[in-house]
């Protein structure tokens, strides 16, 4: 690959390295879990290609295999992925200098990791153009798709009874992502509140709707607390 760059510009290829390291094991674990839950390699990879959101894909696999209906599934994925709205809002000020025709393509590739890495780069240096994004985003995406494909192939050969701890991959990822998001007592409170509400609602509401309902109520209470404390 030929890379032309001016001296001070940020390099998307270099910046993608930590993302590649993170995506390889998680994409692999996702792939294994997918085929072990009874999906075909094609289906597992299709989610990586079209949804491209790690935690949402794990959740989609677990919801689809437990027979959740399509509306609940899509609503849950919507809420789970609503955080991209924040990332996109935050990136928008940096993407203003990029030709708008690139935006519909580039925005597809915003993830937790590509956002975190690019926002750090962009804050430090303003010598960049769309090439930075294409490099960073394309390498990350390719890594994710390929690692989930390899995992899916590996999973389809695995014996069903092998316990390689993957049952815990998803809860472990929730914990890791949660701790990356939590700062301050308010968020700790909203976390515990939403979690307990989700458990309680599970007894009342059918088919995983508890997740959407408690997430919306929890975030709503958080928003209200913020507003009340600002007014007083």
């Amino acid at each position: 690959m030929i890379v032309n760059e001016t001296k001070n510009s940020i390099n998307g290829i270099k910046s993608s390295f930590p993302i590649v390291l993170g995506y390889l094991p998680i994409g692999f674990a996702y792939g294994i879990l997918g085929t072990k839950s009874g999906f075909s390699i094609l289906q597992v990879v299709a989610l990586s290609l079209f949804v491209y959101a790690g935690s949402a894909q794990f959740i989609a696999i677990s919801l689809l295999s437990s027979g959740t209906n399509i509306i609940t599934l899509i609503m849950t994925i919507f809420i789970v992925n609503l955080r991209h709205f924040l990332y996109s809002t935050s990136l928008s000020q940096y993407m203003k200098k990029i030709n708008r025709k690139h935006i519909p393509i580039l925005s597809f590739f915003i993830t937790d990791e590509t956002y975190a890495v690019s926002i750090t780069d962009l804050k430090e240096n303003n010598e960049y153009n769309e090439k930075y994004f294409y490099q960073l985003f394309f390498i990350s995406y390719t890594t994710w798709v390929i690692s989930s494909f390899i995992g899916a192939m590996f999973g389809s050969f695995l014996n069903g009874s092998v316990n390689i701890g993957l049952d815990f991959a998803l809860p472990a990822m929730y914990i890791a992502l949660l701790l990356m998001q939590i700062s301050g007592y308010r968020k700790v409170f909203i976390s515990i509140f939403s979690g307990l509400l989700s458990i309680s609602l599970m007894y009342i509401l059918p088919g995983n709707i508890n997740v959407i309902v408690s997430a919306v109520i929890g975030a709503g209470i958080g928003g209200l607390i913020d507003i009340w404390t600002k007014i007083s």
Partner: protein
Amino acid sequence: MDKNFVISVLGMFLVTYVPRFLPVFGLSRVEMPSFIKSFLEYIPVSVLSALLFPAIFLKGNHLFISYKNIFLIASIPTLLVAYKSRKLFSPVIVGIISYILISLAIN
């Protein structure tokens, strides 16, 4: 691939893509009300907790708070590593290894 799966993937693509696309494409010029901003700030925390708590505290739709609950016990080292590192990779690996070790110890 059956029809339901294709519809699911298409639906998931749309609801994931639109929140990624709208703000960078121009919504940024519209100032959001502060409640909506705050609400969105709390969404990741509330969603993840709503997913996590049932996954570790319940077994077969019933509360299962016991040292025999492997998910719950394995969450402790995972939480500690996640708290220390604030990254994705190491807590997931520590969690998976603890889970395997605890299930070997209990069975």
